[in-house]
């Protein structure tokens, strides 16, 4: 079924928005493959976003863990994470569709930044919805978005976090969908968003494939990626789904512990449910009320897993894993010391998994960690952890 991955996916939205989803789907199918779009988009990816990103052989880190580890350097994308791959694609699409304005939501600010960057390039106005708690926690990114010209809309409802901001953006979209594009930031939301985002992020895996073949003459044994919605992971995985010998690991935010209410591990603690327009793995109470997630990593702090990731984990193609907050901070330090790189807290989940589950890999293995972003945005949190604890 269109927009479905097994039971997951669909279009659970208000009737008001259906026209916009249908229009988007049609536009994507028509515009995306066009030479005009591809020309402009590839140009932007190359010269603005900085693609292809390197596939870096992390020699010192490899020595430490005992097998070959490559880092797919999405931290090198302009803005510091994979988010711009998708934001540029959708902004350009929105421009070609004749939209005048972009709206979206953001937690850590990474996707919000990517959106206003892409919006400026495409001369579209940008409005970013952000939970009041996240606004407080990410004050610097908020001002950065303002400096870039974005309008920030504080979201007071609920817990004032990402989940609430997504809801509020959907509401805003209902009021302006004729002129405004909702630039969804991950492989979540109603069809066709998960497919569009995964398509734009798919460049990651296509590059990995080409680069590892060039460097090693063979495919990797494993790819490890962090995620919540799943966009960087799917982006990295998609080119390898059919390759049975490539193990895929999806690492979600374990938070403080699985026992407490302090987690974002939806594959461990959730079950299928409908949130923000799509059926997916989601954390909820016994009655179907969505539960807030909790992790120190803002970008993983979402209670749902996108439909495609939900499906691929369900059928066992992807292994659903998690890392705990303290493991994540330690992984940041290890990466800093071995390779001089400070990863985003999200990314550090994938690194931590590799560090703490070495027994799952053999000495001859080639492992690719999708290094989804740099840690600049998390410096305060990281420094507080190490120097004030």
């Amino acid at each position, binding site marked *: 079924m269109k927009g479905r991955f097994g039971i997951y996916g669909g279009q*659970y939205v208000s009737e008001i928005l259906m026209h916009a989803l249908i229009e988007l789907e049609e536009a994507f199918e028509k515009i995306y493959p066009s030479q005009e779009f591809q020309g402009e988009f590839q140009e932007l990816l190359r010269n603005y976003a900085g693609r292809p990103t390197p596939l870096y052989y992390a020699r010192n880190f490899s020595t430490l863990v005992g097998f070959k580890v490559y880092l797919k350097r999405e931290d090198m994308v302009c803005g510091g994470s994979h988010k711009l791959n998708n934001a540029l694609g959708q902004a350009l699409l929105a421009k070609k569709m004749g939209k005048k304005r972009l709206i979206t939501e953001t937690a850590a600010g990474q996707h919000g930044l990517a959106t206003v960057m892409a919006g400026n390039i495409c001369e579209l106005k940008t409005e970013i919805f952000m939970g009041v708690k996240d606004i407080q926690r990410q004050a610097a990114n908020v001002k950065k978005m303002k400096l870039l010209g974005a309008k920030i809309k504080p979201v007071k*409802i609920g817990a004032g976090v990402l989940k609430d901001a997504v809801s509020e953006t959907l509401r805003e979209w*209902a009021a302006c969908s*004729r002129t405004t594009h909702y630039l969804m930031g991950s492989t979540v939301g109603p069809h066709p968003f998960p497919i569009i985002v995964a398509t734009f992020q798919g460049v990651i895996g296509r590059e990995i494939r080409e680069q590892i073949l060039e460097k090693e003459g063979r495919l990797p044994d494993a790819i490890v990626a962090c995620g919540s919605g799943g966009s960087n992971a799917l982006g990295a995985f998609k080119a390898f789904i059919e390759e049975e010998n490539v193990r895929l690991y999806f690492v979600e935010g374990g938070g403080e512990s699985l026992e407490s209410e302090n987690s974002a591990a939806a594959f461990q603690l959730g079950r299928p449910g409908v949130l923000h327009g799509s059926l997916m793995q989601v954390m909820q109470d016994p*009655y179907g009320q969505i539960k807030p997630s909790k992790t120190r990593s803002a970008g993983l702090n979402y209670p749902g897993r996108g439909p495609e990731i939900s499906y691929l984990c369900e059928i066992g193609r992807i292994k659903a894993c998690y890392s705990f907050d303290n493991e994540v901070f330690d992984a940041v330090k290890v990466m800093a010391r071995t390779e001089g790189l400070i990863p985003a807290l999200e990314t550090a989940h994938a690194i931590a998994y590799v560090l703490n589950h070495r027994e799952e890999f053999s000495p001859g293995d080639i492992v690719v960690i999708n290094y989804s972003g740099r840690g600049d945005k998390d410096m305060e949190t990281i420094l507080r952890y190490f120097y004030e604890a």
Partner: protein
Amino acid sequence: MKLEELFNAVRARGEGAHMAHVYYGDPCEDFSIKLIETLAENGADIIEFGIPFSDPIADGAIFQAACERALKAGVTPAKCIEGIKKLRDRGLKTPVILTTYFNIVYNMGLVNFLNKAKDAGVQGVLIPDLPIEEAQPLLELTRKLGLHLILQVAPTTSRERLSRILAEASGFIYLIGLEGVTGSKFRSKKTTATLIEKVKAETNIPVMVGFGISKREHAETLIAAGADGVVVGSAYARIYAVNITNPFERLSEIARLAREIKLGCIRGQKIKLNVSL
């Protein structure tokens, strides 16, 4: 009372219909019971009975807050359905449309949910995040059980999808009068009137218009434009929300607004029928 009967009766009285939307359990079950009874006694012809959901994406700030308060107070879907039973036991005759987001239904299991709703005395079910594309299973099940699945149309609905929706519609059509969420500011746009006309031209089942209606004149205008009735929700919640520690004190004001709305429904119908007021 069956929905058909209700609409026949209202029409027979020369009135437009008035559906009042309430989120149950806000701020407590007792109040909701009283509120629904008050509305029913003061001009609400149908009760849209909402089961609170944590993330009500089609609802504006007022109903979001209502959901939040109700959930905080501990209301559950089961308690909501109990609430309907209780209202029926206390003598409520008004048809009840059970409204909630799809995850609540999915979580209970579709059959289970519908059976319980039917047992409790519900006439129809409305799921605001279930467009026709996703509605097939529920359409079949409701038909089997003799329940209505209330479908929505909006100003953005294409002609093609409108036909598809109307072909499946049952009970009445919920026509979303504006692009936005519940509780938005009322805008009487030509598009709304055009949409009402379009829908009326294609179907015989009643058309109820909702979103943003808070005054007698709104009801009057919309029904005069061809609607069979209106839905009012946030406007009621707004009244008691400002006095949330003792909402009961506001019931009389709510009753007054309900009567006003009903009056608008009557006047609108008169205009539509070209009867001098």
